Structure formats: C-alpha cells, structure tokens
C-alpha cells in the first residue's frame, strides 16, 4: 500500500483501531475483529489485502498490549498465525516446504471472512422477514381436536389354542410341582448324607448313596440324585468331603475329607 493515500488511510485505520480497542469485549472472536478491521480497507471483501489486514490486526494487538488490555487467548493465537502468514507472504517460498503457500493461506482467510460476512447478511435478511407473532398471526381460538379413543381387543388363534391347552393340561402338570411324594428335598438329602459320610473313607460313587426305594421309579431317582448331588456340593463347600470325577460324564465319587 505504498501510495499517496497510504498515510491518510493508515491514520484513519489507526484511529478506528483505537476505537475498537476500547470495546474489545464487543467482538465475537478474532474473525469478527478481522472482519471489522477489513471494513477500513473500503474494498470488496474479495479484493481485500490480507497482508494489510494482518498488519492492521497485529498493530491492534500491539496497541492493546501497550494499553494493558487483557486479550483472550484466541486473539493472541490469531495474532501469532497472522504473523506467520505475513512472513510467508513476504518471504520467497521455500522449495523444501510442502505445506500450503502463503497465498493459499491468505485465500482461505479471505474466504472465511467473506463467508462470515455472508452469514451475517443472511441472518439479517432472515430476521427482517415477517415473523410469526410479530407480523402475522396464528388462530387465536384454536379448537381442540377431541380424541375419541376406541380400544380394540385382539387375540390370535395361537393365543386361543394355547389358552385352551393351558386349561386342559393343568392336571398333567400337577405331579411335577405338587406331588411331594416323589420329591426328595435338598434338606432331606443333606441330613441323610451327613449321617452317612462318616463311613466314606474311600472314594465311593455318589450314585450308591441313593436311598432305598428312590432308585427305581425314574421320577424319584431324578429327584433323589439331584438332591444328593446338591447336598454333596454343600458338604464339599463346608470341607466335610471331597469330590472327584475322573472324566466327562464319568461317575462322580466322594469321600470324607481325611482327618476332617
């Protein structure tokens, strides 16, 4: 910007910057500040001098520092980045460097500024539209839609058949759950095993402990076996006996804990 108007514009920019510094709190971040500074260039945002803008921003930051105004960190980050950008723009490109060129970075910053400005303009246009409750209005006496609720009951054929089957087979199920005659409880088995276990010094098959009369009928045998097994687990847990099984599905053997 080494032309005749330069000094005048620089002065104007500086004055503007002074004013800006006073209400630095009014800015919504560094991009907002940059956008405001760019207005002093009085050109189309697309033709803006990013180098000039960087200089404006950096001098703004310097001033704020001399005036001991606390600036949020992101303003300082932007200052550092703009200083870097400035050096990229001024120095000849380093052929070794594969990063983006100063021009690319500057173009992106210009794009960001233009985009922010565009969004501001769009927001303003949006808010200038006729708005509900301000310019146009909704129905003042809306009539509520009364809801008439109808309940429809459903059942499937399967429900029906299962329901019937449930009733008709109730009797068949009774023995399993109701008939105590064919059930040996854990308590019964435990009591019995406690009495017997003192004699089991050697490994003995668990199945041999089934009480008389419980090894014939499959139902009774199942119940007694299950309870006996549960009882031995309980006894083993207490340290009274030891359990072993030599192979998968092999007979389970127990013996009294030696010295126990």
């Amino acid at each position, binding site marked *: 910007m080494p032309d005749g108007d330069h000094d005048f514009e620089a002065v104007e920019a500086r004055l503007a910057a002074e004013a800006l510094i006073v209400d630095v709190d009014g800015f919504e971040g560094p991009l907002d500040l940059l956008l405001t500074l760019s207005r002093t260039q009085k050109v189309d945002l697309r033709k803006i001098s990013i180098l000039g803008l960087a200089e404006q921003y950096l001098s703004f930051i310097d001033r704020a520092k001399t005036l001991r105004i606390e600036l949020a960190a992101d303003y300082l980050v932007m200052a550092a980045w703009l200083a870097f950008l400035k050096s990229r723009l001024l120095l000849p490109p380093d052929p070794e460097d594969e990063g983006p060129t100063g021009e690319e970075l500057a173009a992106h910053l210009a794009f960001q500024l233009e985009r922010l400005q565009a969004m501001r303009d769009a927001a303003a246009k949006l808010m200038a539209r006729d708005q509900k409750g301000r310019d146009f209005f909704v129905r003042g006496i809306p009539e509520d839609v009364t809801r008439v609720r109808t309940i429809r009951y459903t059942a499937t054929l399967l429900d029906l058949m299962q*329901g019937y089957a449930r009733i008709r087979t109730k009797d068949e199920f009774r023995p399993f759950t109701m008939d105590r005659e064919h059930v040996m409880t854990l308590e019964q088995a435990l009591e019995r095993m406690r009495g017997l276990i003192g004699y089991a010094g050697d490994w003995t098959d668990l199945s041999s402990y089934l009480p008389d009369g419980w090894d014939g009928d499959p139902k009774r045998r199942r119940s007694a076996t299950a309870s006996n097994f549960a009882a031995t687990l309980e006894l083993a847990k207490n340290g009274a006996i030891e359990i072993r099984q030599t192979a998968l599905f092999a007979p389970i053997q127990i013996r009294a804990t030696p010295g126990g």
Partner: protein
Amino acid sequence: MAETGPIEDSLFEAPPMAEQERMVEAILFASAEPVTVSDLNARMPHGADAAEALEHLKKRYEGRGVSVVKVGDAWAIRTAPDLGFLMQKETVETRKLSRAAIETLAIVAYHQPATRAEIEEIRGVSVSRGTIDQLLELEWIRFGRRRMTPGRPVTYVVTQEFLDHFGLENARDLPGLKELRAAGLLDNRPPPGTLAPDETGDDEQAEMFEDES
C-alpha cells in the same frame, strides 16, 4: 411494525370497505376471544365501519367451512356446525385380550354350546360377568339355545365374527389337544399363576381390575 401508507392516509379517509373486511377477518381470526364491534372499531383505522365490514364478512363465509357468528355481543369465527365431526380424532388402541377372556373364549369355541357353569368347571375358577360381557360386546360369542336341563341355563356359542377374526371356516376346524401338542403349541410348563386354584382366582381378579381400566 411498518406503518405503511394506507394507514396514514386513513387518518383522513377510511380504507375501502374491501380492506376493512380484510381487517375484520384478520382480527377475528387472530383474537383469543370474541371481539365486540366497538373493539373492532377501536383497533381499525379511524373512520372504519366495523359493523358494515362484519356484515360483508358474514355473507362471504356463508356456506363455508367456518362461519362468522355472534357470541353474546361479540363476534368470532367458528367451525361450521355440520363439520364438527372433523374436530374429533379417532384413535384406535389395540389391546391384548386378557387371559381370562381368552380362556373363556377358547372353552366356548371348543365346547359350544357351553353354559357358564361348564366354562367354570373347565377353567376351575368362576367366570366374571365382565369377561362374558366383553366377549359378547366384541361379538365373538353370542347366546345359543337354552340348555334343556333344570334351570334352563343359557348357552354360549361363537359367532361368524369370531370365525372371521381367527380365520376359521368352522369352529370344528380348531385343532384338538393332540394336534396342539404335536405342533409344539403346548407350553411345557404351566405358566405362573396356574399352580394352585386359589392363585388363579387372584389372577383373575387382577385381570378383572384391568378390565375396568
């Protein structure tokens, strides 16, 4: 609120009647309460004649879906009386039939004609009046011929509606117990609640209360 040309003019000259009609229309539409003529006049530009504008508006809405009606000494726009049915929204809620009802229905279907006493004997618990009523109301069962036994009890049979709903040609097409078992449709275990008769009783009571809801 941009005070536009026509309003300022109206300080000296009332807006055309068509415009006044629009104004009355907008005010009646947006007001939360019926509006009196004097209120209308107060809100409209000077020189406006709300009463006349109202008459025009009222005529315009004759035979429409809404009409301009007088409520006390005020005016409002209301739904045309013949379209009131549109202000109701029917919602259909689907609910599973209670177990008591399903079982009762099943017994009627398998044993029809069945008396109430027979249903109770098969279920092992008493059948509440509500359960029967519900099934009658659903038109899934109806009264059959009275049984020619002492007391001449009523019987229940299933209806055509029942057959349609369950996709059956005939109640005799219902599979028997053996077929149900073969098809794996029998529960292997009695569902909770069927263990003891008294428990079932409670259960039914609970269902009855559900019916009430």
